[in-house]
């Protein structure tokens, strides 16, 4: 479809606006990360004397690299467990008629209705009982309370959209439900798995309250907690430059992750299967 020059200009303007709106605070964080001391209180588009020092300082003050590793470990394991459990669960909830299906779906949703603050004490007891205090599985386990319902619901919705004919054909060939899930549906669910996984990954990556409560030592902490613990020369002081540097360091791999996976989100390989 040919678009007029005006339409393209307008479209371009919209794209620029979106980019500005989304990126401005991040740009401001980068600018702040290059300031130190009193320069922090100046408002200027780019610091006069960029304090690149802030970046190495992030790693010198605390085991930040370990924290990043911990975050990667926790988020990956959480996503892996969630997706693994949800794929089978959502098949059951989306494609099989059985009694109690609707209440079950609602129950999964219900678990998401509890504020984290409220379950904290009970969760703390559970973690200590499992002997997971100050170890990273404590977070994987506790994060399931919000990732699992989400992944189950989203995958169920996507799985419902998959065509019945493929399933019927497989059943005709004598396939077991397990085969149907792994051989027939799983390949088609690429974009939805990636999308759901990515959102769950980011949610786990950013989680703060549980991570703060279930870890004690710097070696076990994840990135959001490590950033919130960055202190300065006194109990009150917040070295903004260093904090922003840490935030920038942490956001960049996530962007890389998204860039890497966004092709999968796009591929739209369902189209072929649907038409066929």
């Amino acid at each position, binding site marked *: *479809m040919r678009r007029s020059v005006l339409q393209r200009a307008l*479209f371009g303007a919209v*794209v620029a606006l*979106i*980019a500005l709106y*989304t990126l401005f*605070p*991040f740009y401001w964080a980068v600018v*702040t990360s290059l300031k130190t001391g009193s320069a922090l209180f100046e408002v200027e588009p780019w610091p006069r004397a960029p304090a690149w020092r802030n970046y190495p300082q992030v790693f010198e003050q605390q085991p930040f690299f370990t924290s990043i590793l911990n975050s990667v470990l926790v988020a990956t394991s959480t996503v892996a467990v969630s997706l693994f459990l949800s794929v089978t669960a959502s*098949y*059951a*909830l989306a494609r*099989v*008629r059985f009694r109690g299906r*609707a209440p*079950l779906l609602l129950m*999964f*949703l219900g*678990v998401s*209705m*509890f*504020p*984290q*603050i*409220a*379950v904290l*004490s*009970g*969760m703390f*007891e*559970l973690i200590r009982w499992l002997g997971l205090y100050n170890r990273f599985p404590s977070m994987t386990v*506790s994060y*399931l*309370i919000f990732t*699992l*319902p989400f992944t189950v*619901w*989203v995958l169920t*919705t*996507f799985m*419902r959209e998959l065509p019945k004919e493929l399933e019927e054909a497989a059943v005709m060939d004598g396939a077991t*439900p397990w085969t149907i899930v792994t051989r027939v549906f799983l390949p088609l669910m690429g*974009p*939805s798995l990636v999308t759901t996984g*990515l*959102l769950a990954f980011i949610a786990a*990556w*950013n989680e*703060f309250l549980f991570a703060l409560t279930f870890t004690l030592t710097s070696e076990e902490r994840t990135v959001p907690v490590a*950033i919130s613990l960055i202190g300065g020369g006194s109990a009150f002081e917040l070295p*903004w430059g260093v904090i*922003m540097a840490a*935030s920038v360091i942490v956001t960049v791999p*996530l*962007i890389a992750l*998204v*860039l890497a996976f*966004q092709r999968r*989100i796009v591929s739209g390989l369902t*189209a072929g299967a649907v038409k066929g």
Partner: protein
Amino acid sequence: MDARRRARSAWLFLAPSLAVLALVAGWPLLRTFWFSLTDADLGGMEETRFVGLENYRELFSDWLWWLSVWTTFRFAIISVLLETALGLGIAMVLHARFAGRGVLRAAVLIPWAIPTVVSARMWGWMFNDVYGVVNEILLKLGIIQDALAWTADPRLALPAVIAVDVWKTTPFMTLLILAALQTLPDDVYEAAQIDGARPLRVFFRITLPLIRGPLMVAVIFRMLDALRVFDVFYVLTSNSNETLPMAGYARRKMFELQELGAGAAAASTLFAIIALFTAVYLVAARVRVEPEAT
């Protein structure tokens, strides 16, 4: 034979998830319900006694609780409406083909990728009344005469919090809607084009109904998240009565005032309110928990 076997395998498939949830969600939730019926105090847990519905009675007669309910709902509804509208718009743009689409897609996700505690602080920094950049820009553009106290002034605090939350969570909606858009078959659009339908019409008559399912799921999860909001308010605002969401009220009871029992009652009531709201929403939007004909 088949139906029964299929039902059995369905339960088998669900068993691991249910077991995990029973442990990870069941225990903490039940514990909280239990606490809400006692006078548990964080300073001395040994003296906990059963007090029945006393905590709830006190809760419902507390005007601050009802204020926090009102604040939370105002926040949630406005936020989610804005996020959905923006998310739809941005998703449609990203769905089109243009140079640099991949980069914009990644850029759009950045707000979601930054930890909330960090982005709330960043925005707090930008909203600062004396040397924040928001005031600086508005003053330079002549839109305001005096610097505004965005996070401190009770009238401006809620809009400020909503602005930050919308900025942060629109990517969530965008991504889910985009994924839904990507799964739409092209032939419908082609047919519409041949018929010469106008883009707006195509959007409302064809696109929207087709992505209804995933859109409704996205909205409900966002709504649940918004009703449980805590971080943004806590970090950004002054902990005053006017900017206290329900979860903030529960936290104040539990950790600032040490009244674990009362806080648990507030949390349980929050849960009940959300459940009620969800039920109403599901019925009104006629979201089908059961698919039509399987």
